[in-house]
């Protein structure tokens, strides 16, 4: 195809879009509305991923030790647990350590004097090795029971518990993300093929005239494809913009989230955004192409 023809195709695309300006807005708004749902799901999973990454760091088991346990008893307990295969590491935190940490986190030393550190519990953080299968998890639970039966132990909490629930949520949403994605994708394709049909119907005279003055099939189809691609791109861009501006404008929700979870929701990464837009543009182009070539086939 020559440069001149390419230039003509682009000109015809823009002229055609300008001639049916309102229709353009309707299609773009439709696509934007549907894509916002998908973009919101993407944003949610993206942040859940970030959240669980943040939480993954930290002990797997937290063992609270009864007050009045002596230093030797601590050490015996720690040494015993350390012998278990699944245990990667265990670290003991005495009431004194806990106090120091508390002071550090409060950035003050007013607790230094006259504060009875025995009110703080001694804890043992146990980290299990990273490669734990489901079976091994069972074992860990069994060990958990063992630990809680040791005399000196007051309570055991599973550090993973919350994280596991978070994972479950993330998995669930990840599945839903694809279901929603597929649904939105199909709807977008449907909107485009209907729109192209309508468009071609409105323009059937134009198509007829174009083919009678020596326009090739490419020349007739290309403007429709470019139009579809542009609409899909603008639609998904608007969807991203809508979702992200909602995220950044609803202060209360964000503050609650960041207080509760010590986590600030962040916008979609650039890579994910670009993929989202490209994918949507591709969908628009494919749908337009399919509808247009079906229409032309039916005509001839």
């Amino acid at each position, binding site marked *: 195809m020559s440069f*001149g023809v390419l230039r*003509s195709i682009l000109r015809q695309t823009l002229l055609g879009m300008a001639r049916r300006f309102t229709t353009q807005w309707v299609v773009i708004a439709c696509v934007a509305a549907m894509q916002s749902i998908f973009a919101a799901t993407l944003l949610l999973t993206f942040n859940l991923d970030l959240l669980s990454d943040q939480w993954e760091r930290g002990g797997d088991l937290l063992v609270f030790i009864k007050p009045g346990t002596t230093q030797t008893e601590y050490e015996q307990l720690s040494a015993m647990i350390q012998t278990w295969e699944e245990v990667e590491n265990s670290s003991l935190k005495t009431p004194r350590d806990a106090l120091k940490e508390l002071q550090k986190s409060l950035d003050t030393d007013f607790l230094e004097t006259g504060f009875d550190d025995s009110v703080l519990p001694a804890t043992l953080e146990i980290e299990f090795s990273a490669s734990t299968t489901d079976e091994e998890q069972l074992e860990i639970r069994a060990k958990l029971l063992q630990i809680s039966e040791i005399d000196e132990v007051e309570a055991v909490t599973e550090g993973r518990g919350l994280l596991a629930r978070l994972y479950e949520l993330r998995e669930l949403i990840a599945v839903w993300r694809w279901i929603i994605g597929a649904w939105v994708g199909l709807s977008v394709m449907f909107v485009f093929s209907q729109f192209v049909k309508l468009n071609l119907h409105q323009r059937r005279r134009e198509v007829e005239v174009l083919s009678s003055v020596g*326009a090739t*099939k490419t020349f007739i189809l290309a403007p429709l494809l470019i139009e579809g691609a542009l609409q899909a791109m603008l639609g998904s861009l608007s969807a991203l913009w809508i979702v992200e501006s909602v995220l950044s404008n609803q202060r209360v929700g964000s503050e609650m989230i960041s207080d509760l979870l010590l986590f600030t929701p962040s916008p979609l990464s650039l890579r994910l955004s670009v993929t989202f837009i490209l994918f949507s543009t591709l969908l628009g182009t494919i749908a337009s192409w399919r509808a247009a070539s079906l229409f032309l086939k039916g005509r001839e």
Partner: protein
Amino acid sequence: MRVQAFHLGHTYLPEHPVLHDISLDLSPGSLNYLIGPSGSGKSTLMKILFGDEPIQTGQALVGGWSLAHLTDKTRPYYRREVGFVYQDLRLLPAWTAEENVCLPLEAIGRSRRAQRSRAHELLHQVGLGHHLRTPVAQLSGGERQRVAIARALVHNPRFLLADEPTANLDPALSDGVIELLNEQRQRGVTLLISTHDHQLIKLFRSQVYEMRRGIISRHFTSQLGHREGESLSQGAGESSHV
């Protein structure tokens, strides 16, 4: 461009043949008329020669093109060498006269400036220099017809088919249009014009093919004369069956 048709036959609906065994030989740069009553098959023959209707039986050769072998891929390129003024004009009413006339050049990717200057030249020639920017919907029937003629000429076709190009024009304008079309012969353009206006054919020496019920019933060379009330048979010279 030489135009030859060999034993063309055509049917739209089974059992109702529209053309039977049509043969023609139009020499390059010649002026040819198709006359005959309504429904005799003039438009059908022209559409076949433009590649709008497929060749069902027979063969047609136009320049180097074998019309029986046109495909969806090659047809646009054939049409770039041929111009057609449709009986129903096929203009885009919402577009301006200029935009309509530019379309064949747009389809082959000419620059905007080249398109415009060529379109203006032709629109001035057909007397529509003052309507360049007028949407076709706002033009009169005769003005639209002239826009269609300008569009058919804009890409310098070597074979021009015009299906009743003077149907909506008054006698003076009709003669003007035929003169304009006739000028194209200097460039070797072959003209095939269908008409019900038998006065037209006396304007220039031309080959006249008279159609009746799908066959060419008469073929003769027209004789020059002035536009008046006389009937066609008196103006006709030698006559032969094809």
